[in-house]
């Protein structure tokens, strides 16, 4: 057998090994999680929330090529929506699913409201303006005491329940988050491959040429902002429900940066990359828990290192969900 033949013979198998491995690990994790101690289930939950946030932000950064550094604002909108509508703060106790819908709508509206003024800008200016917006929202939350409880936040949020089924234990949230993440992931992936997704990619590649082929770039960008904000807001509402406490502390600039990092480290524009990025950035600090404060320093240095060594992220662009599925079913 010649070298070339050997290579062609081996290649199909090796291209299946990685997908199978990824699939096996994922299944094993999902099956094992409910039996883990609560502490670890919480870690997995926080991982899932960050994956959800990553999926949302990736629509703006990865698909459309707009660097949004204020994403945490939408996360905050969702969390405070739950906090205000299901707590003693105003003695409102709406059902969880209804709040989820309201949070999604509010997220979309905030996304569009923020989007309208800033979408004319591009690149670094957009980054700095969205960063400013994120800070504005945080400052407002911090100071609007009558509404948000100020720096103390809002405590004693209602326990969530869906159709009479109470969602309180970390395991319950694990299943809920798993469903939401999968749904969001599928929606984002299908959006990427829709005609709108292609328009986003065109805007990312060359905004002016995109206009030249008849794309209303403002509308397409607003759609990206709104979709991304909706996902962020839903993540926020679930976060609020699982913590049963919200405060401005959770919505700092650092959070926005962390989510951007996840995307960049994993591989911009690739959902599998986000999962990998989130796994590294969320789980690694947990593994390094003993070193307490050193872990964030380590994260910062790791980030510089990865951007220099693997600027396109650790998961190649070509290794997307399609490849994974194709690998699994041998097509």
């Amino acid at each position, binding site marked *: 057998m010649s070298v070339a033949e050997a290579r062609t013979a081996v290649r199909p198998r090796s291209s299946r090994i990685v997908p199978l491995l990824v699939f096996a690990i994922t299944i094993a994790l999902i099956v094992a999680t409910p039996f883990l101690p609560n502490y670890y289930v919480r870690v997995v939950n926080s991982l899932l929330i960050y994956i959800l946030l990553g999926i949302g932000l990736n629509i703006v950064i990865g698909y459309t090529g707009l660097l949004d550094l204020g994403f945490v604002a939408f996360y905050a909108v969702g969390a405070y929506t739950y906090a205000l509508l299901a707590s003693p703060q105003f003695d409102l106790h709406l059902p969880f699913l209804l709040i989820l819908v309201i949070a999604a709508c509010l997220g979309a509206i905030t996304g569009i409201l923020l989007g309208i003024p800033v979408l004319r800008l591009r690149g*670094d200016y957009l980054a*700095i303006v969205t960063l*400013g917006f994120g800070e*504005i929202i945080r400052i407002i939350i911090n100071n609007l005491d009558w509404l948000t409880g100020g720096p103390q936040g809002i405590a004693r949020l209602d326990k969530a329940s869906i159709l009479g089924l109470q969602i309180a234990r970390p395991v319950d949230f694990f299943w809920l988050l798993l469903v939401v993440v999968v749904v969001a992931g599928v929606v984002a992936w299908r959006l990427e491959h829709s005609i709108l997704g292609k328009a986003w990619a065109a805007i990312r590649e*060359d905004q002016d040429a995109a206009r030249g082929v008849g794309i209303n770039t403002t509308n397409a960008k607003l759609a990206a902002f709104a979709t991304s904000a909706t996902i962020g807001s839903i993540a926020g509402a679930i976060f609020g429900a699982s913590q049963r406490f919200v405060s401005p502390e959770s919505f700092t600039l650092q959070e926005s940066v962390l989510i951007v990092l996840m995307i960049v480290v994993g591989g911009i524009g690739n959902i599998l990359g986000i999962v990998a990025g989130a796994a590294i950035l969320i789980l690694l600090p947990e593994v390094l828990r003993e070193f307490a404060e050193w872990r964030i320093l380590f994260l910062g240095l790791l980030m510089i290192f990865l951007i220099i060594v693997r600027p396109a992220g650790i998961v190649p662009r070509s290794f997307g969900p399609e490849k994974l599925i194709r690998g699994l079913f041998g097509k």
Partner: protein
Amino acid sequence: MLGNLIQQTVNALTIGSIYALIALGYTMVYGVLRMINFAHGEMFMLGAYVAFLLLSMLVGDVGMAGAIALAMAFVIAIFLVGAVGVGIERVAYKPLRNSTRLAPMLSSLGVSLSLVTGIQILAGPQPVAFPSFFPVVRYEVMGGTITSMQIGILVAAFVLMFGLHFLVTRSRIGIIVRAVSESRPTAQLLGINVNGAISMVFFVGPLLGAAGGILYASYYGIMSPTMGAVIGLKAFTAAILGGIGSIPGAMLGAFILAFVEVGGTALLPVITHGVLGTEYRDVLTFAILILVLLVRPAGILGEAVSEESVVYKREF
């Protein structure tokens, strides 16, 4: 009333001169590399911490007299931070020079994160009281109070800014830096030492930022590992306001921003009948930033680049 006005004006000038020192670093880096250096705010923070450390060493271990120790700590600290700036550029930005526009910015976010946590580990996360670098004497001027500290800050800041102005307009290295910010490829083709110019910018920028940090910490009597974030953003706003890439623009923007802030802080509660208190000062800053970017992205002194002449290609 007049006294109040004078006092507020001096307050604004003091804050403005500190903003200007930091804004200069943003604008110079942007001019040369077209990059937002998110770690620049940390140079400001680092300045205060290094000066504090030096001061305690000089006074405590060496037993130097107060005034000389202060001056020495100031000078050594800013040069040290300048050197740190050059080192950071070499390690974290230089390898990315031919990468996408986004890469060095993300790298600078990493640097920022590392520096903040690094200082938190070394010096603790709590704010620390900072010694005054100037003897505090109060002067009454037409009913307003001005401190010697404010005068000292103004003098120090202006000396540094004139120094920079001289360096940029008169010296050989200044001409090289300007050539590189005009067009890096052309400068390279003409055999100009582009790396030298970039190193220079990453030395002078952090040096000025560190000076700003020492003056700021001295003015408010406190420093903390996270003090660079918000101030950095404000200085960046100032740089944009004046026209990013323009050195006089950064100074002008800083003073305008400071006056708006001081004026706004005084007037906000009055105008809104106490609904919006002074804590919304930062919101005002960001509102200005957003407004400027939307109405005149080139800033006050920046070159107006018409949308037509700019080719937008993918940035990452």
